């Protein structure tokens, strides 16, 4: 199994929320209470003139230890053997919301029918060579997806470039 995951580069996220709406356009839960499997939150730290505002896009992390999976009394949640994607079988789900309590990131959603719905990492799209809808649309390239090895490599590379750039930047610092 090649385990897959999302990759999120916080330094690139602008809080534009394109990922949230792309998720809704991909997954048809058009109800009065519309459901997206992603949400974007903003975080402020410090005070004027030093304040910083950062944004983060969250969704199901498809955790390796799968707390939702363990919590489900109906065994409606499973890991896809090919890539570890955590999926819910809505035919079995009884809407008891145990998974909601177990999930550390608030990923399980409950549309009008009361059954759990969550990010499936667009596995059908991936099987057809397409990226997950949120990754595909992310305007700044903050979101990506791939095997855990691939994504760690990408993260390592980004971090080292940032460090190198950082040192260049401080030597050119304007006074």
């Amino acid at each position, binding site marked *: 199994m090649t385990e897959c995951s999302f990759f999120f580069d916080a330094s*690139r996220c*602008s*809080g*534009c*929320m*394109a990922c*949230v*709406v*792309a998720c*809704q*356009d*991909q997954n*048809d839960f*058009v109800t*009065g209470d*519309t459901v*997206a499997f992603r949400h974007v939150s903003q975080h*402020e730290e*410090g*005070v*004027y*003139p030093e*304040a*910083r*505002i*950062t*944004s983060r896009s969250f969704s199901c992390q498809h955790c390796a230890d799968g707390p939702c999976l363990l919590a489900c009394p109906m065994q409606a949640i499973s890991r896809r053997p*090919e890539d570890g994607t955590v999926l819910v079988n809505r035919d079995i789900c009884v809407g008891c919301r145990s998974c909601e309590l177990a999930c550390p990131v608030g990923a399980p959603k409950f549309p009008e029918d009361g059954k759990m719905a969550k990010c499936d990492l*667009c596995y*059908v*799209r991936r*099987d*057809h060579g*397409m990226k997950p*809808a949120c990754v*595909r*649309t*992310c*305007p*700044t*390239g903050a979101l990506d997806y791939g095997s855990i090895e691939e994504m760690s490599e990408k993260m390592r590379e980004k971090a080292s*470039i940032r460090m190198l*750039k950082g040192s*260049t*930047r401080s030597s050119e610092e*304007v*006074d």
Partner: protein
Amino acid sequence: MGSRSTLSQEKLLQAKIPGEATGIEIKKTLCAICDCRCGIDAYVKDGLLLKVEGSEKNPVNKGKLCAKGNANRQWIYSTERIQTPLLRTGERGDGVFAPISWGEALERISSRLLKIKDESGPESVAFFAGFPKVMRPFLKRMAHTFGSPNYCTESSTCILGADLAGILNFGYATGPASGAELNSARCIITWGTNPFHSAAPQAITYLDALERGAKLIDVGPLKSPMSDKADIHLRLRPGTSGALALGMAHVIIEEGLYDREFVDRWTLGFEEYRAYARQFAPAVAEQVTGVPKEQIIAAARLYATIKPAAIVTSSSTTTQHTNGVQNHRAVLALIGLTGNFDRPGGNHIVPATHELQATGLSHRGHEFEQARPWEEMAARIGQEEHPVWSKLTSQAQAMALPQQIQSGKPYPIRAVLGFGLNHRMWAGSDFMRESLGKLDFFVNTELFLTDSAKMANIVLPACTSFERNELLITPSRFAFWTEPVIAPVGESRPDIDIIVELAKRLTPEDELISQGHEACLDWIIAPAGVTVEELRKHPGGCPLTGCPETGYEKYQEEGFPTPSGKMEFTSLILKEAGMDPLPVYRESRLSPVSEPELAKPYPLILTTGSGLPMYDRSRTSCVPWLKQLRPDPMVEINPLDAHARGIEPKQWVELSTTRGALRARANITEYVPPGVVNMSHNFPAADVNELIDPNYRDPISGYPGFKSLLCEVKESQVQAEYS
């Protein structure tokens, strides 16, 4: 991949996988919710739009879309779309209409407008174009052929003010972003613009530039992803861009960092400009703008010493002030001063071709639009108050329309034929709404029954870009002719087709327009060697090759197209109009400095209309996916100011100015600096433009001072949501 064959057709359909198994086709179109006009892959099955995605080969968005673009399906299929032409049967404004046929609607409109023309002259009919922009050349042509000079647009508050400043300084309309060449600039100033939220798919260009090592200076009162990434953020008080630019100019000149050769050979009025800038030494500029003088000096040195350097301007944030054009002139002057004008990696001037797109291609757009010379028509709306606007732009100033409707001076305006007219765009929007009510006849063409449409005698249903043909030629010379990807919703029609049908009745002598959309486009773009038929062969668009590129430093051969033939620090056009020839700084008419007494009851500075990622003004306010991201009207206020007023997060507050008050939730945030309050335009029932006087305008452009005035915020008596 083992599971691929085992996936049921139902699963494939649910995942919207295109192909034979599902019958889902990908068709190419573009998004026209805002003016970026990103390329779209429309997933269509049995004539129904299932999903959108950005087109990867489209150079505008390179496969990406913003929140609004991703919501196209819900916008297009909104239950609030107008299905048929409507005839008002109730009182103005209460929204009671009866459906009528297109034949009846067109007949009623044309006979009424021709009658009004007969009785009061063609100038008593005004023609207005809001969004989208594709129909503009057609509407302008019809207006002038009809005999009316009063063709006006949404650009009465948008890009043209910045263009005016460019024309006054350089003789060129500098256009969106002032031609900043981001791919090669080594230093970038973003002045009052946040593309991460207003043009998200294009913002990656800035991230790439930063990764390349470009320096970034961000200017603006609000925090944004841009300001967080900047080497220097000049967080000025709203309305003081002119003083900041003059302060930077002072440093650049006195430290000898300016381009002497360019200034000596190619500019007019440098000594006066230099003497004037002396009044804005860094300590003085700090006092006016609130930006620490060390930062002003550092930014000036950085911008003037790194070559090439480009300034990215906004279409409106610097010009929507009572001293807007002069402030913007002061900003643009820095480009000439440092020798970055029309040079690679600096600000490159590329003339607009079609609908203001800077392509530099030859075309007959002006001949097409200006069907009758100005001299053969009456004075334009706003011409008396804003003579420079009328001299330098080719439209009437719509901001003066309500006043003329109400006063009947210098002549009555009896009818308005509107396409996407929204009164909420006007300062004192309630006054504009009231003025619409005084017209003898008002037609609006719209997607939704907006509060403006409710004022109309007849409402015509328009199509979205997915339901029509559209031509786009981008600045990178990517040409794109779209075919409809779904059938029109209800009986809606493309704006241009509606204009063509009306022109057949109103201006039957115009043979060209009566041949329709494609024939007219062919006539306009013929000099570029392009035809619609040829473009049709390339669904999704194609690069135009073989047309000469727009060169750099065009002034070397042609001089500057200004009265003096030079870049004018002292504008001869302004001098002739009896105005200050220098880019002088004046306080906003409503500021703590210009009105200290008024600032006692209204101590906060109100700035309005900054872009939110999920809204383009109130245009997408009926889309649930977007509305849930920000369901209530919100006033941004700094924690310091909120605390001083005992205001709690999310509490309903009253925002008031000398003109009125509204209710919104407090969004307590560092997004705004202390002393500044921001309000955006997403929520029609809490319309901040009602709080701004309709005459609070820049005398040069006629633009309202939307972005700096005085206000106060306090806890509201009513703590309930809007019903």
